[in-house]
């Protein structure tokens, strides 16, 4: 098995908020290898976007990393200088955001921005950068790249903007592409097309892709491996097929059970996960899911759960799963 391109080890991050801190990531370890698509699944507030931001060193000013490392090809990027980290962004690690409108500047044309994104390449004339950008737009499926280059972001449809954002991210041939909810703002037909495009691009460029989404359908369509997050922790990690067909962590099971797309027979009542997320300003001492878990015992509430290895690339953070 190849070495990971990007790995996060024991990463803990907290946000300073009025009156205290919120533990957004709690000892997260995850790695993505070259040519692999890793999915990070979970509901709002589980820390998946914070993890994606930490991977590209784009956490907010109120974020504080309290422990752990983020390694790119073995090198700890958190220990680098601000400038060196900045140089990695875009060139080595690129990001696609949920809302492609805010990813572009509204006052410059798409073409001007795609040229600017290549500022890292020195001895190449602007004309050539323009052509590279055009080719990339054609590659991501814009039928008239010439026209798209001359347009302002608001003149493109949502689907075209997201394609342009993917083109922008791939311009520098990054080793890792991180996409945070890349299809959430799109219609189902456009979502299917973007999923299809990402799969093709991944085959062509062999870069590592990290997809962060709450949409279990997108993960199933696209990913090789999945990490399920809950309350700032990775509670289960598994190859995609095993995760959907033999989920082991009670939260993963509950999450899959309440996806209406997985329930074949139409039903007036849908299963729900009762209860609420724990307050991460005061994380519970034991398992974060214990309050909502049907299998939980007294031990779950008091003792932090162990990470149980369940096979190659497979583990769950739970007292009740048997190896």
């Amino acid at each position: 098995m190849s070495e990971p391109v990007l790995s996060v080890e024991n990463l803990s991050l907290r946000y300073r908020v009025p009156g205290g801190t919120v533990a957004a990531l709690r000892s997260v370890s995850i790695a993505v290898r070259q040519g692999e698509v890793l999915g990070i699944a979970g509901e709002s507030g589980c820390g998946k976007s914070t993890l994606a931001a930490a991977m590209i060193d784009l956490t907010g000013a109120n974020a504080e990393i309290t422990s752990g490392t983020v390694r790119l090809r073995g090198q700890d990027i958190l220990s680098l200088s601000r400038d060196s980290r900045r140089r990695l962004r875009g060139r080595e690690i690129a990001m696609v955001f949920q809302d492609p409108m805010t990813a572009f500047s509204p006052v410059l044309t798409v073409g001007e921005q795609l040229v600017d994104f290549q500022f890292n390449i020195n001895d190449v004339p602007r004309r050539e950068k323009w052509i590279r950008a055009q080719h990339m737009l054609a590659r991501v499926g814009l039928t008239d790249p010439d026209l798209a280059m001359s347009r302002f972001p608001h003149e493109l449809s949502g689907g075209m903007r997201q394609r342009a954002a993917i083109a922008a991210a791939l311009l520098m041939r990054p080793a890792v592409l991180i996409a945070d909810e890349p299809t959430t703002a799109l219609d189902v037909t456009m979502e299917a097309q973007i999923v299809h495009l990402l799969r093709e691009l991944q085959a062509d460029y062999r870069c590592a892709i990290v997809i962060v989404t709450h949409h279990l359908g997108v993960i199933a369509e696209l990913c090789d491996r999945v990490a399920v997050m809950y309350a700032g922790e990775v509670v289960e990690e598994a190859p995609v097929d095993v995760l959907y067909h033999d989920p082991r962590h009670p939260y993963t099971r509950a999450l899959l059970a309440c996806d209406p797309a997985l329930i074949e027979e139409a039903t007036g009542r849908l299963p729900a996960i009762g209860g609420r997320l724990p307050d991460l300003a005061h994380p519970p001492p034991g398992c974060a899911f214990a309050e909502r878990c049907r299998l939980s015992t007294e031990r779950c509430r008091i003792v932090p759960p162990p990470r149980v290895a369940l096979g190659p690339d497979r583990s769950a953070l739970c007292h009740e799963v048997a190896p």
Partner: protein
Amino acid sequence: MTALLTIDDLGVDLALGGWFGAARRSLNILAGVTLDLKPGETLGLVGESGSGKTTLARAVLGLQQITGGSVRFEGSDLARPADFRAIRRRTALMFQDATASLSPRMTVGEAVTEPFAIHRIAIRNHHEKAAELLAEVGLPPEMAARYPHELSGGQARRVGVARALALKPVLVIADEPTAGLDVSVQAEILNLMSDLKARHGLSYMIITHNLALVRHVADRIAVLYLGRLVETGPTRAIFAAPRHPYTQSLIAAEPKPDPRKRRTDLAIRGEIPSILRRPVGCEFNTRCPLAQDICRAEPPALNDLGQGRAVRCHFAKDITEGGRHELEH
């Protein structure tokens, strides 16, 4: 059974331009939409952004001027603004963005009792009424003192439901009732809506692009494409065998939460055309895998297929579940 709501050949045009003496043009948004909703029924209105779903809902409530056809509610015609005002107590709208639809300067208690003030209905005790409405949607009475920014997405939805139900309407139009919610919270809101439907005999018109959702909650669905009703029928029948090529593509495009059912091809190419450049003939011809010359020349009529199903396609009678492939070759 007599219909609660009857939409007959509804059309909406928007006036465009007309600045400084330039000729006013009109832009067609909806045309020829015929639908009805029976008491106690849930109708799912499905389509991509720009298909006219929300415009249709607004037209039904008189929030958008109708330029063709008619809308009847409980047997009476709705045409003038006064007619719509008269039905406002019997209908309610749940907005897409639950948090934004609540005034940031009103507490939850004020928001849920505001409909009584608007309709000048005297209530004896506001606190009691608010608590009663909140209990109906599973929220504790203390919630009445909160402001919208203090609510979670799921709680804001519940408040939206409570407010919609305040005047005991018979028809609730819900615009993307679970957009932006996590799956587990989505399930809670849908279960709440179905409980309330059973308890109060409500009818719902649910506007959504989430197919998995309509499959579970709607009795019938209506699929819109670029302002035209392209297919309508019982939900189960449509999902089992969609007849319009657009409905087929839409169902096929939905990502399946099962890695063993990955699609290798693309269910639907291209994008919904701009309403400013409406295709000639069938609106779907630019993306339709089956389009023939006639589709680029003549707009198809809505074909009644019996059993409550209708399809707007020139080949409606030829396309069956397996027939799609026959036509392709």
